[in-house]
């Protein structure tokens, strides 16, 4: 007997014709339930290919959280767009100001919730108005909704082009929703502008004392903010793979400034809008149906999404606009080193969201190998290398510059290694936790990059043999690459502090590594480059003077060292880390660092795990656990007072260096403050304060994510 109920016909219609859908069903319900009774308690009856491990990834049906397709008797079927329009639950004409404000605000709440990683089907597209904006007769609502659709589109375009997100950051799928593709971007912006002008006219004819005046202003500000944000993003997106030029950028910056100024006004009027319904999680009383797209979601999705509340939403948008404005400044970073620093700073900023990070990525490299779409990345890298250490082969006055073999060698070096530098920039765009993960893998690339840089240096050195090699740094490529490698390594270690991965008993070797090696090596790489650049300059100055026949040298005029600031800051950080290292040694000596239970303790394994990514590198060499032990024992020969005193000296040194840097930025100011406080604490401890207290020290990361204030109770 062939099954002939409607279900089987249904199956034949579906795309799953992999299994030929002819079934013949036999009811075994009671037979089955009787049979399982014979199994032992805890026994699994299963196919040999199937085990408990596979079973764990199964979705539990009829579980409220896991089974999003569940039909709950108590839950009404979700309101759909068609039904809402037919039954008049969706108002399409003459919306009141409070209704508009309510819808606007909840739409932004949904948009921001999407940007924070939720699915658009559970956020933006729960707004029924967005399902078909053409039926909305109210001009203000229609233009706003179209604006939101276009915003959704351009945001998605930025984020998917930059590709610096992971599944926890962003859901790109928009499930065939129409993002207002029938209207051009310009048309939508023009419509919004027109609606704005309309409201403005109304505002002008209203008495400012009247209550409606404030409501109209609130609607107007929201419309304007949306239009400005949309316009900026549209302008920022590269046209024909060219990023906006400086003039366009300053225009965009102005628009963003206007947008930022509107946010406080908008926040003040949130209460003017209709409120969300507390009982059923809907973002607004009208226009939203949270479960409407439930069937579109993959089976493992969470059933409910908490939509961000309104004031938090506008805080987010305010920071976003500020960050976008800051990102525009990348246009001034033509040098790779400066650009990388910019990227790193940007990602460190609190509230640097995925969208702003993506915009930054797209602006700098709209196509993978062209900076701003205009200059070849290779040329930018060459210029950066030249500015870093002025290798002979890149100096036009040097005979090596015209040597075809040398040129070829350099070109192929860049051709094959450019991607590592691109990768480094890309990594800065990811969220902080993923960055650490990816840096560990980037270091593998650096291992081969370092080899090749050394090979280039050797080759060039050979070519130079016999020729005048005055003022040539023999390891210019190597030093340059080493600098970036060290930056990556220190970022890796420091990010562990920020992500709170290390236990207090591990701080000792983390700070030791930073102090003794990484920061020290960065300082020496920068010093080498610096002194070499100065030397170069002297030579060319002398050369000039000679040719002009002047005997008086002008060399005495003090030149600003090119890396002065970075060099000093790194030295300060090195001393800060030195301070922590000595302080921790002091606490160790005093037995005040809680150690893990002996049965779980094998320090060598933890050490090797922490520094595992460094093991691949040959330059700089990884420092093994034995080295750490011998240095630690040597240090621990000192008394705890001596150790604390030495820590105080380091903090003092850091403070002195920082005080010599002009125009401290926010981070430097924080570190200066931390160094000052730690200096005082260390001095107290060195003088025997609370000497016999068994209480472990506290590390307070509230002032800086990576460098704590040490507190001793």
């Amino acid at each position, binding site marked *: 007997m062939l099954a002939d109920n409607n279900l089987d016909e249904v*199956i034949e219609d579906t795309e*799953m014709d992999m299994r030929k859908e002819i*079934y*013949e069903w036999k009811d075994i319900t009671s037979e*089955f339930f009787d049979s399982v009774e014979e*199994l032992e308690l805890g026994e699994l*009856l299963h196919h040999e290919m*199937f085990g408990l491990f596979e079973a764990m990834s*199964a*979705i539990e049906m009829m579980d409220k959280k896991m089974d999003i397709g569940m039909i709950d008797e108590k839950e009404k079927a979700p309101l759909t767009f068609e039904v809402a329009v037919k039954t008049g639950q969706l108002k399409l004409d003459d919306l009141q100001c409070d209704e508009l404000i309510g819808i606007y605000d909840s739409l932004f709440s949904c948009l921001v919730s999407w940007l924070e990683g939720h699915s658009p089907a559970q956020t933006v597209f729960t707004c029924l108005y967005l399902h078909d904006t053409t039926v909305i007769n109210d001009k203000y609502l229609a233009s706003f909704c179209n604006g939101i659709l276009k915003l959704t589109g351009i945001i998605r375009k930025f984020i998917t082009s930059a590709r610096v997100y992971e599944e926890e950051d962003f859901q790109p799928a928009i499930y065939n929703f129409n993002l207002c593709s029938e209207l051009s971007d310009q048309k939508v912006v023009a419509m919004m502008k027109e609606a704005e002008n309309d409201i403005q006219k109304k505002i002008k004819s209203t008495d400012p004392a009247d209550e409606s005046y404030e409501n109209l202003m609130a609607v107007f500000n929201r419309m304007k903010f949306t239009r400005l944000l949309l316009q900026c993003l549209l302008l920022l997106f590269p046209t024909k793979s060219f990023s906006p030029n400086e003039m366009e950028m300053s225009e965009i910056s102005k628009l963003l400034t206007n947008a930022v100024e509107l946010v406080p006004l908008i926040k003040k009027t949130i209460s003017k809008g209709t409120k969300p319904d507390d009982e059923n999680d809907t973002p607004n009383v009208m226009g939203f149906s949270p479960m409407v797209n439930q069937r579109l979601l993959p089976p493992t999705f969470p059933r409910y999404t908490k939509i961000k509340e309104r004031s938090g939403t506008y805080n987010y948008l305010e920071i976003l606009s500020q960050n976008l404005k800051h990102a525009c400044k990348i246009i001034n970073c033509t040098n790779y080193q400066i650009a990388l620093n910019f990227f790193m700073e940007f990602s460190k900023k609190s509230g640097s969201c995925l969208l702003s990070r993506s915009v930054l990525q797209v602006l700098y490299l709209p196509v993978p190998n062209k900076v701003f779409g205009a200059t070849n990345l290779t040329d930018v890298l060459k210029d950066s290398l030249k500015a870093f250490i002025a290798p002979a082969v890149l100096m036009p006055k040097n005979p090596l510059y015209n040597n075809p073999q040398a040129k070829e060698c350099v070109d192929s070096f860049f051709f094959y290694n450019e991607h590592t530098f691109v990768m480094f920039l890309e990594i800065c765009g990811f969220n902080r936790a993923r960055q650490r993960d990816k840096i560990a893998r980037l270091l593998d690339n650096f291992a081969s990059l370092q080899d090749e840089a050394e090979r280039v240096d050797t080759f060039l050195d050979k070519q130079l043999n016999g020729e005048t090699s005055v003022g040539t740094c023999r390891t210019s490529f190597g030093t340059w690459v080493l600098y970036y490698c060290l930056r990556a390594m220190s970022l890796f270690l420091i990010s562990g502090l920020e992500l709170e991965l290390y236990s207090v008993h591990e701080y000792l070797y983390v700070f030791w590594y930073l102090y003794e090696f990484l920061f020290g090596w960065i300082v020496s790489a920068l010093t080498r480059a610096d002194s070499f650049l100065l030397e170069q300059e002297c030579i060319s100055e002398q050369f000039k003077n000679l040719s002009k026949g002047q005997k008086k040298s002008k060399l005495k005029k003090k030149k600003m060292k090119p890396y002065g600031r970075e060099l000093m800051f790194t030295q300060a950080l090195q001393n800060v880390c030195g301070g922590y290292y000595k302080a921790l040694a002091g606490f160790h000596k005093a037995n005040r660092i809680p150690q893990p239970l002996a049965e779980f303790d094998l320090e060598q394994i933890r050490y090797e795990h922490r520094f595992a990514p460094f093991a691949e590198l040959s330059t700089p060499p990884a420092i093994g656990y034995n080295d750490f032990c011998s240095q630690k024992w040597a240090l621990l020969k000192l008394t705890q007072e001596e150790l604390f005193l030495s820590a105080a000296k380091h903090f003092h040194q850091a403070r002195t260096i920082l005080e010599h840097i002009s125009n401290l930025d926010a981070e430097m100011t924080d570190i200066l403050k931390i160094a000052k406080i730690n200096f005082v604490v260390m001095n107290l401890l060195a003088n025997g304060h609370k000497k016999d207290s068994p209480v472990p020290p506290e590390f307070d990361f509230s002032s800086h994510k990576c460098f704590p204030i040490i507190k001793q109770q």
Partner: protein
Amino acid sequence: MFLTEDIQQINSEKLSQIEQNQAKDSNGRNKLKSWLNRNFRIEMIDGRKLIGLFLCTDRDANVILGMCSEFRSLDSEARNLGLVIIKKCAIKKIEVDVFNQGEIL
């Protein structure tokens, strides 16, 4: 990682236990075995029907179906769920496909 090892260990323990039980292999157990890897259609208490391969069960009649599709009476479209577990309390009716007798895997 530890988890995997643990589970493998549990699995192997289970297997040996089952081997011991083989001697007293009963009628019901044989029946269940004959159904393994066959298509099941399970109707749930909320009216949805699931079609998938019967992979695993236990004494409490927790059923695991692989390559499972969900059908609703209202809309015609199947929705692919993959691996699912259905508790006894959610099951209204179980049917086995007797047309495709041969093993699919």
